[in-house]
């Protein structure tokens, strides 16, 4: 059971969260070409190493945020602490 460093609640079991996957920017829907939009929908970097990804603290603070995790070791980079909004988009 991974211990996920929720920037609001503190360390939480991964079962308390929903994994949102690789964090990626949404293209402007007004101008996006098909390849660009489908790249956003389907293509992933899927690195074996540090990955910026989204999580939703479903059983806890109910906030979406991004974290950095090493997909080879499952180690998290510490997020900013409560009161410091840099890591949490909310």
């Amino acid at each position: 059971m991974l211990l996920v460093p929720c920037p609001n609640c503190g360390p939480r079991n991964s079962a308390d969260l929903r994994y949102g996957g690789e964090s990626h920017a949404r293209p402007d829907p007004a101008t996006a070409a098909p390849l660009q939009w489908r790249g956003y929908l389907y293509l992933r970097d899927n690195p074996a190493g540090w990955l910026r990804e989204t999580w939703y603290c479903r059983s806890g603070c109910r906030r979406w945020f991004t974290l950095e995790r090493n997909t080879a070791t499952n180690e998290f980079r510490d997020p900013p602490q409560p009161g410091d909004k840099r890591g949490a988009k909310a």
Partner: protein
Amino acid sequence: MTMSRLEAQPTEVIDRSTTQRFRWNGKRFSGFEGDTIASALAAAGEHVFSRSMKYHRPRGILTADYWDPNLLVQVGDDPNVRAGHRLLEAGMDVQAQNVWPSLRHDIKAANGLVSRFLTAGFYYKTFMRPQKLWPAYERVLATFAPGGKVDPDTPHRYHDKRYTHPDVVVAGAGPAGIEAALAAAAAGARVLLVEHEHAVGGHLRYAHPEPARAALSELRAALDASDVEVLTDSTVTGRYEDNWLGIVQRNHPIAVERLIKARAKVLVVAPGLIERPFVFSGNDRPGVITSGAARRLINLWGVKPGERAVVFTANSDGDAAAADLDRVGVEVAAVIDGRDGRRVSAAQGSSKALEAVLAGGTRTEADLLVVAAGWTAPTSLLNMSGDRPVYDPNAARFFPSDPPGNVLATGGLAGDGSLDELRAHGAATGQLAAERAAAVAHRYQARTARALPVTGDEPAWVADLRVPLRRTHHPELHRSDTHGMIDFSEDVGSKDLVAAAREGYDSVELAKRYTTATMGSAQGKLETVNTVAAIAEARGETIAQVGTTVWRPPYAPLTLGALAGRVFEPVRVSSIHPWHEANGVRTILAGQWIRPDHYGDPAAEVRNVRANVGLIDVTPLGKLDLRGPDIPKLLNLLYTNKWSKLPVGKVRYGMMCAEDGVVLDDGVTGRLGEDHYLMTTTSSGAAGVWEWVENWLQTERPHWRVHVTPVTTAYSSINVAGPKSRELVSRVVEGVDLSPEAFKYMEVRTATVAGVAGCFMWRIGFTGELSFELHVPAGHGMHVWEALMEAGADLGVGPFGLEGQRIMRLEKGHFIVGQDTDGLTLGPSTGLSPLIKLDKDDFAGLPELAWAADRKLPMIVAIQPDDPNVVPEEAAQIVRGDTNEILGRITSSRMSPMLGRAICLGQVEPELAAGGTKVTVLLVSGERISATVMDHHAHFDPDGERLRG
């Protein structure tokens, strides 16, 4: 060998005043409280406990502990019980496993005669022809499956679970583990000490010399006086990420087995060492036992393991066994010292008259051959922590290499030493564990919103300055000059492994898979090192070069019952559920909801709604309370249609698509006030839509001012449907003008209903009837439902369930997301293209929906079979004529009570979507029928006159 009970031993754990009677293979036996099944049987002179898997060779005690591969028995409905560990209980019904027709006379033992042909992997090389016969061969092979029997009537007993968050967990309560626990507790840590055996003490428990006994008493007393939580007969089964530990407790007073999940800040691994068998011809004969088995039998249970023994020893444990044997009157006929390069070469003869053959040919008659050939380091928990233990040929075993900082090893796993040195190392380890745990605890507490504020800075991460334990030289004893058994539970010998390596299966993993060595009940605890040694020998390499296998969890097997624990499967019900139950409801499970499906006759329920008035409990309908000035922007983003101009008091239908254009959910949203809306979703989509909305608001549009609150179960939702619904509602509602002019279709009003203030209702209609959907504060849901039932008695009011609603919505041609749509159904396929406003700046899925507008897509259409009495199954395929080419499928179908004919919705290829098109439907029976695509989705009241009435 002939075993028997000795006079009382000072270290014994049995209570000779309490006799326990039990059955073994149908015969009566007795033992004492504190006996294991095996010790009781051994004391009674039993010497064969099982037959081996392939060759059905007789097998006796080998290690006399949990890992003994020869002591798996059936106890009642409990298969594969470790008789070397399980305590005897009065009335136990114990059976030998894997024997036919009996333990003594086993017919399959004839396999031993052909063993030269049944080499490892032989089954890959034969039974191929004739191919037809393989199923028959397979059935025969399956009869060789070892193990006990599953009783089909086995009940699921009471198992449960517990979470715990100790600072330090110590796995193993030998002298080093106990000292570690004591030191950690003394340093202020919350400590959980977990011992696999039935009592703490490790090897001290079966050590006869007085200093060892004194040390054990002292350690026990110290533990009793400490705050350490001690679990015996419990095992740390796995170490998972971030020190998440699985611990199985087998002796809990109420749970058969309890699974404890511990988030340890530091794990101390102190399992001791496991004695390893020596490989030589006949090493699996009854009478050949490890030195540990001899000492345990004598000192723990007062069992005399034989009359005349040969001891092969390469270490102090073997010497201690020789001393114990001599002390209790077993004649020690010969001591063969492995440290002098001498080897035992074979065990021959029967179990009653064993003959030990030395390398060189000297023979000694005995009924017991005790072997002390070295150790396996059970590094399992270290492997699970990511460590790769390293082999040290000088000490002839593996040692920890570089475990993570929150996992510390001590005791025999970490090195050798005197008892005092091991205890000192344990204490130093406990101290270090406590100090590191304090740093972790400080960090957790500092970051946890609800926790007490921390004082001071996070303690520094303390360096590991423990004085390492020594490593004593031990001869590398794996195989003698003969071949013998390596994996006792799988019947894999050293010869099999050499053959496998020669054949090309020469890496540990390949050889393991090919021969199945290490795959049995002990999962490598006894046989891994010898397996690696055999491959190394065949390859002409060292053990270090070959490497070891990966130890996988669990460390000790645990029952499925323990893993499952209390099975929590939450179910939810509406406030009106007790009424449904009292009124003959047939329920249906929809996700976690228990819902009324019908009350006996769904078609009658439909007719009553269409003729009079019906009530349906639609509480599970997802409901989100929206507040704030930016709601119209949010709705414009989530739905495909436009929301900027919805007036207060109005309701609108909307469809949501995902970013790939696939239909996600649908429902109505009403504007209750200037900045206050209520959104409804499908019941199954409620949770997902909420998370999706929060995602948009929190990550893509964080500057928008909207508060979203799920209120699904804050309201009981009751749909009142039918031509008499206005009359019924008017009888219970106060202060709202219900006339068609004042309260129009797709409008919402706040009301007091049956005396309940704060209700609101809207005029919508999934059923196609005039209907009022009431949303009532849930604490009054039952009251309002009963009030409606009472008030409408003369109107013919009756309940209807999901099935009736499904029929009516199908009559009206409303699609259901997830039933009539699937994972690839794009928005336009629903026929609702007019609701997809491509001229909006942005909404979820906009680009895909824009491109989809130009594509030929499968379409959802209404279909009627030409024979009105044939209802095609939901899933019946629409095909091209007499061919097998699939052109679509029926997604919903029912017999319409109103039309008296079969009606359907289906998905068809675009070429078939036009009204009037004839299609061929292939029924499940194989019959092909013709059907017609309709002009409109609605089969009934296509103009919606009833609805708007």
